């Protein structure tokens, strides 16, 4: 089967999926930092992270499906999960396959989160930081029309957002004081606040 529709669908779902994945990573770092999005309670940020992630996975199914079905290029069914098995641009497609494999693990472990040890889930979930660059490099190497214009701008924008948020999240993780010191700091801040009359900030548990 070939046709312009398959090719358009493939490109559209690929780029949309990358944008949604970026959004998932950004929302994930907000969840990680116990942050808030104006107008949304914390549990809604968590829900948004989950649902945007699931949506990007759903689009990815279409992306992979159209690539396999389209007989214009030689991408076999085996390339869905076996990396570097494609006849067409084996390296670029192989990166995409690796990203799909990781995504399946991340989604499956998150759906089973209540039944898995927390550490296992966390270890698998952290591979998202590897998943995103794989998908990104797959996009810019396998993509056929990145020559310039708005598509390149979108891709670079995604890269900037994901990198910025990841660095901020990892940095904030190091900045969290150990539990024993949090109580003492909160006590000092609360006393100072009452004496000077300034409102006291919120201390983050961790």
């Amino acid at each position: 089967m070939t046709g312009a529709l398959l090719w358009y669908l493939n490109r559209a779902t690929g780029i949309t999926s990358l944008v949604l994945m970026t959004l998932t990573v950004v929302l994930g770092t907000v969840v990680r930092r116990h942050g808030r999005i104006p107008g949304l309670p914390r549990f809604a940020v968590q829900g948004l992270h989950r649902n945007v992630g699931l949506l990007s996975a759903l689009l990815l199914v279409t992306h992979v499906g159209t690539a396999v079905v389209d007989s214009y290029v030689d991408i076999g069914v085996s390339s869905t999960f076996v990396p570097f098995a494609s006849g067409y641009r084996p390296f670029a497609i192989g990166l995409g396959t690796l990203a799909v494999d990781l995504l399946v693990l991340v989604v499956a472990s998150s759906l089973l989160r209540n039944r898995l040890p927390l550490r296992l889930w966390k270890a698998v979930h952290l591979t998202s930081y590897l998943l995103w660059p794989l998908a990104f490099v797959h996009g810019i190497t396998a993509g056929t029309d990145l020559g310039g214009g708005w598509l390149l701008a979108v891709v670079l924008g995604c890269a900037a957002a994901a990198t910025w948020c990841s660095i901020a999240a990892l940095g904030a993780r190091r900045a969290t004081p150990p539990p024993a010191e949090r109580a003492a700091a909160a006590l000092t801040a609360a006393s100072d606040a009452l004496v000077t009359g300034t409102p006291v900030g919120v201390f983050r548990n961790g």
Partner: protein
Amino acid sequence: MTAMTAMTGPCLVRGLLDAPGSSYAGHLAAHGPLPDVDLHRLAEEAALTGRGGAGFPTAAKLRSVAAAAAAGRRAPVVVANGSEGEPGAAKDATLLVLAPHLVLDGLALVAASLGAATAHLATEQAMLSALAAQLAERRDPIGVRLHPVAGAFLSGEESALCAALEGKPPLPRTKFPPVRERGVDGRPTLVLNVETLARLALIARGNHRAAASMLVTRRMEIAGTPWVDVVDMPLGSRLGDVLRLDGVQAVLIGGYAGTWVEAGRAADLRLDRGGLAPVGAALGAGVLAALPADRCGIAETARVVGYLAGQSAGQCGPCLNGLPRIAAALDLLARPAPPPSGLLRDVQRWSGLLPGRGACSHPDATVRLVASALHVFSDELARHRAGRCAGRFAVSFLPVPGVRR
């Protein structure tokens, strides 16, 4: 200096602390060898309750750990908890000095009846060398591992203690799964207070009245001198018979996780679960403190709450953010000057936001203490608003680590 003895008052029987000393030979001569008994049935019949503070039925605990061990086919771990994080209490330390072999007997009994993999005893560092020597005298089938505990208020909480025994920071964990199912190293774990174990050792020897009394740390002032002692008190005693209440304005029942009660209402209270329930109090870890009339109850409570706020594990938002604010507000209320308007209302509002929202019950207990203080010392609050204070002493009556006594 405070006096610390195992004094017995007129109404108090000598029991647990009527010890022959810390030698094993003396212990055997006084109590006889440990018989082979059905511990679960005996604990059930004696209706023994835990003496660590919560007062949970010991037989139920034994049964659930045995069931969890059988279900998971893993040998359980037993832990003797002598950490006594409560600064007002001294009964665990007193018991471990006066009758260490009763505690070790209890630990050996429980370990044998559950088929435990390991037995641990956790207490303050200073006690460990004496305990090691006493352990060496005995020939228990299961070796007991001794652990020092950090002197923090929460290090005796059972999940925090299990974390410490695994070599992790002593911080409370979530209630689920409970330590009786997954405790030390993921094994079903039975954590019992050292006094509970000593009472089990007496019950096993046929002393059925052992479960009917409780070790109590008394704090009072006699002729202007601070007095602290530990007594073996029959449950159901009249409070007025246990503490001298002349010149006393209020009694703190249950320690820093406890409740203030006016001296007038306190005298005729029966000291057991049923007798204290009407005033919303419980014996907790067995601390009774009689606050003299020339002390400021609000200032005493403020110091204690300041200490408790600093002892938050910093894990749960409501506790980490709520307790320091309540402590800071109480500190202002404790001064003989009009407080900022609305402060009392703020304290009450914050207090309502805390209970039931922590992994452990630290915030719940602290809020209860604050609520009882604001109620019992309402006259004192009114005096403070008028710029006066009943307190005549700069040093605190209730001991608070890090504050001069």
